[in-house]
């Protein structure tokens, strides 16, 4: 019988088969040794890879959920939410609040459980709870992805000079130290900011950046100081962060976050029927949601200015805004 072409596969020789087996064992050992030699690097690469992927996912979560308050670049918005992409935040924050865990745990705890509101705070919005374990919208793994994304600012933040650091000092938990060296540009301004925050909170007997504050003397307390000047209020309460007082609000030039206030007097009286200019501006300060200029979002402007100023101060501010 003629042998078919595939008869080459009819291997009978045991030596050939044993040889094949031995070669295969040797080849297998070589492959396993190759893997052994590269295994540490592979594991490192995988570890970094999954961290990287987590940061990628965190980025999209941040843009969707966090950027409206903490800013697209994480540098915070005045009086809305603090900066995260900040040198102070990375190097000093957990010491100042007395947190005993790591920064990663601090960030995770904050995102997970939020920050319940305090009696006195300069921030407009409270940090909500984000984890679905405590009523928020995100799964635990998404909270972890956000943490990874926020911490990935470290390299950029640590390179900031005091001048570039967008941190705004909290009035309800004072800074005890500053992470900057006195010869860096902007150091003095940063110390002054920290002290201003402490003073705004009425703190006494603190020391910031080596500057010991004096205890307030008689008559320097809030009550005795009398109404603050409107131009100071406009700066210290953060109005200037969103409203440009030096530009006019026109169709060609609109303020990006809040309307420009340069020509406020021209149209304040005509915005709402039955309200004159003073009533309208006053109401816009104490209850910003009552009327929102078309093209702007409700809820961006802080709702608590009535608590932060006395009635006299608000009146002064209204007059100043309309006459500016």
């Amino acid at each position, binding site marked *: 019988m003629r042998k078919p072409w595939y008869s080459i*596969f009819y291997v009978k020789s045991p030596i050939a088969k044993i040889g094949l087996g031995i070669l295969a064992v040797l080849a297998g050992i070589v492959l396993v040794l190759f893997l052994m030699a590269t295994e540490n690097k*592979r594991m490192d690469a995988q570890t970094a890879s999954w961290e990287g992927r987590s940061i990628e996912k965190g980025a999209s979560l941040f843009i969707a959920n966090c950027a409206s308050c903490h800013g697209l670049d994480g540098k915070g918005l005045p009086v809305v939410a603090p900066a995260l992409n900040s040198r102070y935040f990375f190097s000093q924050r957990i010491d100042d609040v007395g947190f005993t865990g790591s920064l990663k745990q601090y960030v995770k705890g904050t995102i997970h459980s939020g920050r319940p509101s305090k009696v006195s705070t300069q921030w407009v919005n409270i940090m909500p709870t984000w984890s679905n374990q405590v009523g928020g919208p995100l799964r635990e793994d998404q909270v972890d992805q956000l943490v990874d994304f926020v911490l990935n600012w470290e390299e950029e933040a640590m390179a900031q000079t005091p001048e570039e650091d967008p941190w705004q000092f909290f009035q309800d938990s004072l800074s005890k130290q500053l992470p900057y060296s006195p010869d860096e540009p902007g150091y003095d301004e940063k110390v002054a900011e920290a002290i201003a925050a402490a003073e705004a909170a009425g703190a006494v007997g603190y020391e910031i950046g080596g500057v010991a504050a004096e205890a307030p003397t008689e008559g320097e307390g809030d009550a005795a100081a009398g109404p603050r000047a409107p131009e100071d209020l406009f700066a210290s309460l953060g109005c200037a962060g969103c409203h440009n007082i030096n530009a006019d609000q026109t169709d060609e030039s609109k303020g990006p976050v809040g309307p420009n206030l340069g020509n406020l007097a021209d149209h304040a009286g005509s915005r709402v029927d039955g309200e004159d200019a003073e009533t309208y501006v006053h109401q816009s300060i104490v209850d910003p949601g009552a009327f929102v200029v078309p093209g702007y979002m409700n809820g961006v402007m802080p709702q608590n200015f009535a608590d932060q100023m006395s009635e006299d101060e608000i009146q002064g501010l209204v007059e100043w805004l309309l006459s500016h």
Partner: protein
Amino acid sequence: MAVQPEVEKKGLWRSFTEGADDIFTRITAGISAGEFRRMLRGEPPGRPNPRLKPHSEAFLLHIKPTYYHESVTRFTHTFRLGILSTYLFLFETITGIFLMIWYTPSPDQAYADMIAILSNVPYGQFMRDLHRLGAEMMVAIVTLHMVRTYLTGSYKPPRQFTWFTGVILLVVTLFLSFSGYLLPWDQLAFWAVTIGTSMAEAVPPKIVGETVNLLARGAPDISANGLLRFYLLHVLFLPLVLFLFFFVHYYKVVHFGISLPASEEEVGQDTANKVPADKRVYFLPDVLIDETAVLIAFTTLMIFLVTFFFSAPLESIANPQSTPLHTVAPWYFYWLQGMLKIADKTFAGVILPGVLLVLLMAIPYLDPNPSRRVRDRRVAIISGIVAGVVMIILSWMGTPQYAAQAAPPVEVVQEMMPEEGAGIVREIGYDEIPNGVYDTRNDLPAMYPEEEYPGMHEILVEFEDNIKYWDKRDSDFNEAYGVLTVSQEQPNLKRLDWDIRWLDAEGVEGSFQRSFWLHKDSLYWEEYGLKDFGYLMPTEEEQ
């Protein structure tokens, strides 16, 4: 017996060699060292054949035949598919136990465990890849084993029941593979299994389908309980079922013998168990050597594939709220997915596969043709080939290529940077994608020549081609162009904004935006293809 008088009588050396020979004979269950040497030299056995002893002495060999017909030991008669299927079951058990050490069947933990296996366990990825490749190989080899049996007509009397149990083993293999699919708890797993179990829901009548679905998932949707159930099916119940039917199947194989090539016996005859003395090939040593060599070579092939060409996929963690675009079943269920696209779930997902399965099991009882010769079985072989071609066509229809396309701009972005998995942009990676704005209305490939920007050039050519392809194909997608903006979001993190604009058939402008982020360290891979060994390159600091 005292040792000393024995040594005095025989001398030290002889007592030693005899003792060693005795131990050797005990270990091999009856083969002495001398006989072993004669085996290796290829010498014929003496009479009575001393090489039969292990078959009666040793448990593991008592189920193996002592000799085979020469014709069935030829490689091209069986291709060793049966023993490879059995071996893969053992292989999957061993690699599976290794993986079980680090795995917790809980939605809170499973996915993190997968990442830990990949990034923190030495040989972890290796074992996972082997297990996954072994599972896919097992499906393929069991199927090929069935195809071989069909083509040689070996299911014919008296082997009808062997075929029947074989079909059961095929089904159990498919279920084993499918139940393991859910365990990594990633998007791929979750949605493939959601689709799969929803087919169980279509079983008529409604109450039965819903109950089956509820029993499988442990809740209306797959969750912690569903994962635990699939885990127990995968590691305990299905292996036990497979184990049982394997022994029934194998007992039948040995009992009737492997069928001879059809040309070597008369039609209707079965002489597999009447092997003339000159045609006998003894298990010891010839078949043992053959099978061992095949299994070792196969193992090395698997290790080779896993080292360079195969990586088990792992997508994002399962998210019941978001179905990724183009969810597909594993490839061996593409045919089913294809059928589901052209008919309703109850018919294509339950009744038709059920009928096909019963038909498949019943083939030996239905086939009236006594001949196993190819020229007598034209109808059977042609219908077998037609069935195979239909399966391949249905499988193609099961892929996203067929009748599951999203809108053109979505497809363009999906092609470049899919929601899950790698895609060309992620595979080329962070380092080769410079920041900038890339507008396809400009001649991008010329602006970014291949010599200077090898990766970016490829991406831009692909981007342009994709848009042109859909522009030509879809009348609602005209004068389309795309703008890719790459910006630095954070250190080591780039943001890629895809913006596609077009005019529809009425000339109304449309646009589609999608943003993705890409980290320097992220590795993305496809399941099949050369692995990326970039991590072996020295890093910038080391240079």
